């Protein structure tokens, strides 16, 4: 069956179940309720003064009823410094556990060592917002029989509370925890900031293990994860490679191309009609995205504009803007560098939020719904403004859905920033390889060669033209770029589906086909 973006979606996939085709960003939500029931969280019982401390991760896992076919979940706040995911799966593999469903909020390069477990039947299914590096390559080539499911950060919460992902065991890394399992990422030698993605796992997993390298006296404050959901606590020497978890401060790019794109994007925001007192703002941490914040910061100071809140993945640059008094509040679901943790811990206007509050579409309103302006990146964008942030130009899975579709659907102004081509590969396509965010959520594309406004928003185009910005038709820009780079030969794929891309409401926006290896 075709979804509303013209992508062929199978009705059923063995191992995943019935699929519902995407019908529009807000179509399913506009009913006002969801048909899927919320499943009950597990009931547990602990005796007064019962000891939760375990001597090792292995012992804790042994006590957690490991079994074939289990679902194991993780959070990715330690980013490329995480070591617990690989350790946990290695322990399960060595116990002979097979047919595991891996449900991590995302997967990074540091998880490459689990590739052999995907080949030998230890891991047979994956739910994740992102897959990269060797794992992404292997997935694209069809290492798993059952397609991986790519979800957004908000969509993951929905999948858990509706029972699509039923977690048997979650392993939560904490940079500080007490003997009862109250835990946080906001202090300690391995501090990583917000632990927002893990909150839903703690609530719903049948077994919850908190792992820390910093056992503190009871109680561990703040209670980012609270003891009433935690079964066991393990103290280890290290929860990860501190140099890769969070270091120093994020620097603004000095690439001339990124700075030019960022400056144009800031101009777009300034003249869009949404740059006004009390506006809410989100930017990514990537090159051009974060650089937009630099130019917006200057414009806010010049014009005397004060914003309401910043949201999302938080960098030290956002913290600086909070401390400058340019924004009232930061809502933080994931922190990108070390200085953010201090702010999260000490500034009461810097608030740690769970993924459900950040972006889950099926509740009484997530904070992404309140965004005025969001700046996002893209691996590819097409003439219908559909965005791909999951598959690369060489056909591998190499990105993450993350909060892309969540924030794009909520914002009044969604700005996509990207170069018009990268290393001879045009970024503006007639048709993106994989759709993650539908074009209807994207208002404007900013490249170094011009600005393209989605024709669905004529008023915005009027505003920008009046300001004298260089507005181009996206079809013209696509042709212009093809003339510079030449037209790339298409990649070849088989009929086998290796990935399913869920939209945030659980409908299927696209599928990923197996790459033919050359």
């Amino acid at each position, binding site marked *: 069956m075709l979804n509303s973006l013209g992508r062929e979606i199978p009705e059923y996939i063995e191992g995943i179940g019935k699929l519902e085709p995407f019908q529009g960003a807000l179509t399913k939500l506009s009913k006002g309720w969801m048909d899927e029931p919320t499943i009950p969280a597990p009931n547990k019982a602990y005796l007064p003064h019962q000891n939760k401390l375990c001597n090792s991760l292995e012992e804790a896992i042994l006590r957690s009823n490991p079994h074939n076919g289990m679902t194991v979940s993780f959070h990715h706040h330690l980013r490329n410094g995480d070591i617990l995911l690989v350790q946990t799966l290695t322990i399960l593999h060595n116990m002979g556990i097979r047919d595991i469903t891996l449900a991590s909020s995302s997967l990074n390069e540091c998880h490459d060592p689990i590739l052999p477990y995907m080949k030998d039947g230890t891991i047979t299914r994956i739910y994740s917002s992102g897959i990269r590096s060797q794992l992404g390559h292997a997935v694209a080539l069809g290492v798993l029989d059952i397609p991986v499911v790519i979800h957004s950060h908000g969509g993951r919460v929905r999948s858990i509370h509706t029972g699509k992902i039923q977690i048997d065991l979650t392993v939560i890394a904490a940079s500080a925890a007490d003997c009862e399992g109250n835990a946080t990422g906001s202090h300690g030698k391995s501090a990583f900031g917000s632990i927002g993605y893990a909150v839903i796992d703690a609530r719903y997993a049948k077994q919850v293990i908190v792992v820390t390298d910093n056992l503190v006296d009871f109680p561990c404050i703040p209670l980012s994860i609270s003891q009433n959901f935690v079964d066991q606590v393990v103290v280890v020497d290290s929860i990860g490679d501190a140099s890769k978890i969070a270091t120093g401060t994020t620097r603004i790019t000095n690439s001339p191309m990124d700075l030019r794109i960022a400056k144009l994007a800031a101009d777009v925001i300034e003249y869009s009609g949404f740059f006004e007192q009390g506006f809410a703002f989100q930017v990514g941490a990537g090159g051009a995205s974060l650089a937009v914040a630099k130019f917006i910061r200057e414009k806010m100071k010049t014009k005397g504009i004060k914003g309401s809140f910043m949201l999302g993945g938080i960098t030290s640059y956002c913290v600086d803007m909070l401390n400058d008094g340019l924004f009232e509040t930061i809502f933080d679901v994931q922190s990108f560098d070390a200085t953010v943790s201090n702010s999260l811990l000490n500034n009461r206007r810097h608030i740690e939020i769970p993924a459900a509050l950040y972006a889950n579409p099926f509740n009484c309103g997530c904070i992404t719904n309140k965004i005025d302006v969001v700046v996002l990146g893209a691996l590819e964008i097409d003439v219908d403004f559909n965005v791909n942030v999951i598959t690369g130009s060489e056909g591998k899975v190499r990105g993450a859905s993350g909060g892309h579709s969540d924030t794009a659907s909520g914002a009044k102004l969604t700005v996509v920033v990207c170069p018009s081509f990268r290393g*001879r590969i045009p970024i503006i396509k007639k048709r993106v390889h994989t759709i993650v965010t539908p074009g209807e959520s994207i208002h404007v594309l900013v490249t170094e060669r011009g600005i393209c406004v989605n024709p669905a928003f004529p008023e915005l185009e009027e505003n920008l033209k009046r300001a004298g910005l260089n507005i181009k038709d996206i079809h013209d820009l696509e042709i212009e770029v093809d003339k510079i780079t030449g037209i*790339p*030969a298409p990649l070849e794929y088989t009929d086998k589906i290796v990935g399913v891309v869920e939209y945030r409401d659980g409908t299927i926006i696209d599928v990923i086909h197996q790459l033919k290896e050359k």
Partner: protein
Amino acid sequence: MKPKIAAQSGTFESSDVIFLIEPLPDNSGRKLEISSTVMQQFGANFNRIVLEMLDQYEMTDIHLIAKDKGALEPTIKARLETAIKRSLDEQEGTLK
């Protein structure tokens, strides 16, 4: 013509290409080693550009190594022309 000396041009940066040329003994023909980050999408185009330019300069008894990181067509041509002229000792900047 055959290269007189070993020569190189370009860099190993993104959107650039590096060419290395060495002379081979007489009657060796051409030995080409081309690699590119965009081989799948632009490999045929890259090979064609290289062969056309080698034909244009009637190059033979040449060992040519190309490592491309997504250079545009004018960049590829300019880098290769430079490498050829350097190897013929017609232009400065050789490895000697």
